[in-house]
């Protein structure tokens, strides 16, 4: 393990243990500090480096003051960011209530407020919210009134009908003195995803979360946890922050482990859980408390060649996003039948999907053109 990776692993152990019982001191170790800062930034753990600096300084006395100063600078930036987002959220919530738009907050801000000793410790890039498809036009009006613009990304080139049909997230940006980004989701999984969540069931299982002293709606712990598990795997756990989030949420005493198990069985996500506990064991040196519950203890850890502690700590995505979309579900889906069905659907999606995304208006969608359009993808697959 490279020194930078060892540092990250030690940091993870400190974060979940608060105090590490077995004290290690890596006196002889040398670091490329600019690279370490880059790695910590990539994994979005710089605020944690600053917060746990005393323990880290003991274990890694070679690290310079300047290293921790840089971590501090980022932490101050993040603390300000949290304040900006908390205030914006209060403003948004008021507008959404006035327009009777139901929504739930996902990921970053919820994790920051509930799982960490201070909210600035959990870095986040944007505010993720989910609304019902019928509310999107009204939500768009609200965000436009608040000075937001739909980001000029890939999705903005698709017509409304396609965005709705495939449940694409929309990215809104407000460029003022304080930049704010909002990701608006209509669903947690799309037609082409490996897992198909019953979103109505998620909406029914909600609760409130306290952010900056005010209450906002989010999904219940167990449903949010299942989504986090899927979301992190979908992205190859390429940020340690997601792994820490998931460990911490699984360590929450209020988590109904039986309900969590019911959901992972219902959505056939047992393999994701089993890969996760292997990664946990290797990076954190322990498993979350919930893993020892009678419900979950029967799931033994399994190794994965593609998604493991080494790949997470290296922090490099081995595939392009389009390849990862096909390969990763082949790793974490369980059962030959499910893998085959998923692969087949990726290689040969319904003709309507091809028409929606690839077909020029002047190109008749017959079988000949269909296979012509798929040829490139299939050849790419064969070269994997």
């Amino acid at each position: 393990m490279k020194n930078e990776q060892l540092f990250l692993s030690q940091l993870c152990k400190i974060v979940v243990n608060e105090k590490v019982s077995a004290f290690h001191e890596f006196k002889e170790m040398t670091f490329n500090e600019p690279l370490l800062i880059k790695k910590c930034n990539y994994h979005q753990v710089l605020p944690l480096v600053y917060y746990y600096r005393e323990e880290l300084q003991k274990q890694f006395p070679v690290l310079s003051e300047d290293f921790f100063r840089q971590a501090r600078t980022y932490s101050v930036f993040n603390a300000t960011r949290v304040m900006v987002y908390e205030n914006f959220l209060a403003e948004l919530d008021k507008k959404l209530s006035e327009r009777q738009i139901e929504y739930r907050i996902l990921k970053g801000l919820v994790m920051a407020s509930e799982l960490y000793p201070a909210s600035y410790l959990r870095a986040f890039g944007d505010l993720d919210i989910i609304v019902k498809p019928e509310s999107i036009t009204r939500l768009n009006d609200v965000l436009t009134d608040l000075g937001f613009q739909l980001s000029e990304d890939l999705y903005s080139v698709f017509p409304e009908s396609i965005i709705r049909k495939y449940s694409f997230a929309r990215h809104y940006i407000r460029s003022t003195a304080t930049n704010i980004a909002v990701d608006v989701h209509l669903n947690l999984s799309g037609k082409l995803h490996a897992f198909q969540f019953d979103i109505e069931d998620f909406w029914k299982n909600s609760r409130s979360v306290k952010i900056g002293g005010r209450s906002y709606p989010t999904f219940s712990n167990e449903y949010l946890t299942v989504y986090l598990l899927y979301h992190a795997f979908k992205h190859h756990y390429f940020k340690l922050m997601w792994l820490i989030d998931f460990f911490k949420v699984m360590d929450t005493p209020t988590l109904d482990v039986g309900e969590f198990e019911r959901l992972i069985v219902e959505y056939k996500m047992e393999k994701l859980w089993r890969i996760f506990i292997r990664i946990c064991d290797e990076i954190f040196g322990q498993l979350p408390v919930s893993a020892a519950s009678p419900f979950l203890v029967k799931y033994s850890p399994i190794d994965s060649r593609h998604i493991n502690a080494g790949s997470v700590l290296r922090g490099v995505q081995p595939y392009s996003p389009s390849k990862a979309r096909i390969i990763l579900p082949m790793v974490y889906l369980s059962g030959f039948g499910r893998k085959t069905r998923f692969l087949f659907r990726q290689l040969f999606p319904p003709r309507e999907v091809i028409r929606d995304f690839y077909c020029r208006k002047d190109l008749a969608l017959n079988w000949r053109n269909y296979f012509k359009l798929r040829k490139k993808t299939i050849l790419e697959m064969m070269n994997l």
Partner: protein
Amino acid sequence: MSVHKRADEIEWKMFDDESLLLNIRTGFYFRLNAVGSYIWSNLDGSRNDNEIIRMIADTFDTTSEQAQTDYRAFIAELSQEKLILNV
């Protein structure tokens, strides 16, 4: 003797010995050092300027003249940025 108070639209948080101030209306944010944070935390409208100047001199081991000069300059900056009100 004047009494100053933090403006309502200012959100603030302590970060170690610094304060982070956010003006909700304009979106601008500010960072205060340890002395600035000390003054800011005492601008709750319950103490007048003289009382705060005395507290600064005691806490930071400085002369009351120096404390007064620094305090006046700081209050002028906060007023200019509309972060405080004269009550």
